[in-house]
C-alpha cells in the first residue's frame, strides 16, 4: 500500500521543529506513527509535509521533578510500562501503557502521539485524567500548560492550537494513591470498548479525593465527576461503589455502533467496569 508523497523534515532540535511547524501550518507532526501512518496509508490523511520528531532530544526521557514526573512526548509505550520511575510515582500510567495495542505497537507508539491523536477509545487519555496530568504544549511563541481535563475536546480533537505541539506530560506524585486501570478491549482491534482509570486518595478508610477517567464510550475521554463526588467522603463499601458506578455516564452522551456495542450496552458495561475497578482497590 503506497502512500501519497509528502515532504519530510527531521529536525534535531525542538526549536527547529517548532519553527518548521510555524512556517508550514499545514504540516503534520510524526511521533511513533502508529496512528498517523495507517491514516495516511488508507488515504484518510494526506499531509503535504511531515515533521518527524524522532531525533529531537528534548522530547525524550522521563525525569523526576519536585512534585512528580515529567515525561517527554517521544517516550514510547513500552518505556512507560517498564520504567522504574513511572512505576513508582505514577503506576496508573504504566498500567494503562501496558494495555496499548500490542508489543510491536508499544515499541513505536509514544505518549505524545497517542494523546495528541486523541482517539476516543485510546487507553492513555483515561489515565491522564485520573492522574490529574498537565499537558505541556509548545509553539514558536512559547509554551503553556493544559490540564488533561481540558485537553480532550472531541473525537481526534484536542485543545492544541495550530502551530502548537505536545512536548511533555507532567504527572503529580501519585505514590500512595489507590490506582487501577480496568479495560474491556474490543476483541479484534484491542481498543477499549470501555476503559476506566481510577486514582483515589484514601485515609482512615475514607476516600479523600477521587479521580475517574473514562475512555471508549463517548466522543472523547472524560472525567466522571458525579461518580467522583459520590465516592468522596465515603468508605469503599458495596453500597457506595454501586452508587458511584451508576453515575459513571452522568452528563455524557454515550456513543453506540451498530456492529459491536450499542450505547445501551456500553452504558451498562461502563457501570460494571467502574464497579470492578473500585472493588479492585477497596
Amino acid at each position, binding site marked *: *500500500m*503506497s*502512500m*501519497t*508523497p*509528502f*515532504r*519530510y523534515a*527531521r529536525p534535531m532540535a525542538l526549536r527547529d521543529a517548532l519553527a518548521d511547524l510555524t512556517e508550514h501550518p499545514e504540516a503534520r507532526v*510524526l511521533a511513533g*506513527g*502508529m496512528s498517523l*501512518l*495507517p491514516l495516511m*496509508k*488508507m488515504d484518510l490523511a494526506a499531509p*503535504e509535509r*511531515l515533521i*518527524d520528531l*524522532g*531525533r529531537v532530544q528534548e522530547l525524550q526521557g522521563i525525569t523526576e521533578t519536585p512534585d512528580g514526573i515529567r515525561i517527554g512526548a517521544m517516550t514510547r509505550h*513500552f518505556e512507560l510500562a517498564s520504567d522504574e520511575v513511572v512505576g513508582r510515582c505514577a503506576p496508573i500510567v504504566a498500567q494503562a501503557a501496558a494495555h496499548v*495495542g*500490542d*508489543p*510491536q*505497537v508499544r*515499541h*513505536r507508539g509514544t505518549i505524545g502521539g497517542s494523546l495528541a491523536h486523541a482517539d476516543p477509545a485510546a487507553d492513555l487519555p483515561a489515565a491522564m485524567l485520573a492522574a490529574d496530568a498537565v499537558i505541556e504544549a509548545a509553539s514558536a511563541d512559547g509554551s503553556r500548560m493544559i490540564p488533561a481535563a481540558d485537553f480532550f475536546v472531541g473525537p481526534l480533537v484536542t485543545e492544541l492550537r495550530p502551530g502548537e505541539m505536545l512536548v511533555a506530560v507532567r504527572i503529580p506524585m501519585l505514590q500512595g494513591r489507590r490506582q487501577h486501570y480496568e479495560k474491556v478491549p474490543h476483541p479484534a482491534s*484491542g481498543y477499549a470498548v470501555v476503559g476506566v482509570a481510577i486514582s483515589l486518595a484514601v485515609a482512615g478508610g475514607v476516600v479523600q479525593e477521587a479521580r475517574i477517567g473514562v475512555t471508549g464510550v463517548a466522543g472523547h475521554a472524560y472525567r466522571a465527576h458525579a461518580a467522583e463526588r459520590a465516592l468522596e467522603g465515603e468508605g469503599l463499601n458495596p453500597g457506595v461503589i454501586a452508587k458511584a458506578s451508576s453515575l459513571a455516564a452522568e452528563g455524557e452522551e454515550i456513543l453506540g455502533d451498530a456492529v459491536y456495542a450499542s450505547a445501551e450496552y456500553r452504558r451498562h458495561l461502563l457501570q460494571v467496569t467502574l464497579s470492578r475497578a473500585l472493588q479492585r482497590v477497596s
Partner: protein
Amino acid sequence: MPEQVSTTAVVLTVNGETHTESLPANMLLSEYLRDHLHLTGTHVGCDTSQCGACTVLVDGLSVKSCTVLAVSLDESRIETVEGLAGPDGLHPLQAAFRARHALQCGFCTPGVLMTAAGLLRESPRPSPTEIRAGLDGILCRCTGYENIVAAVGEAAAAIGEAM
C-alpha cells in the same frame, strides 16, 4: 501536492550489513526491505499493522515494518528473518518451529519468528502466559497458536541450555 518526491539520506544496517541510501520519504520499511533490498522473507499480510507478518527487529525491538517509514530509522540496526539463522544452521526458534510443527502455510512465520526473537531478548525464560502476551501482535490462520507457544517455550529452554 509536491511535484517531485525528494529523497532523504539514511544509513541503515540490515542483518549486519550497512547500507548508505537516499530514499523517498514515503517508502515504508517493508517496501525498502522487499522491493529495494529484495529481502522477501519479510511478508506483508494485512498491510494495516494488524497481522504482524511483516514484523522485523529495529534496534532489537519488534516493529511492524508496514507501518514505519524507512527514512525515520536513520542509523538503526534492522534484523529480518534472513538474518536469524547463524553459520551453525537454524536459529533455536526456527529449529523448534520445525520440530513442533509450529507452522502450516508459513505465511505469517517470518513475522512470528522475529516477534518471538524480540520477546526472548526482553524475557529469556517467558512463561506460557508471557509468550501468549508477547505474541499478541501476530495473527496465524493455520495453527491455532498452540504449537507456536510450545515452540517458543522450547526455543527459550534450548537457548538457556546453550548459554
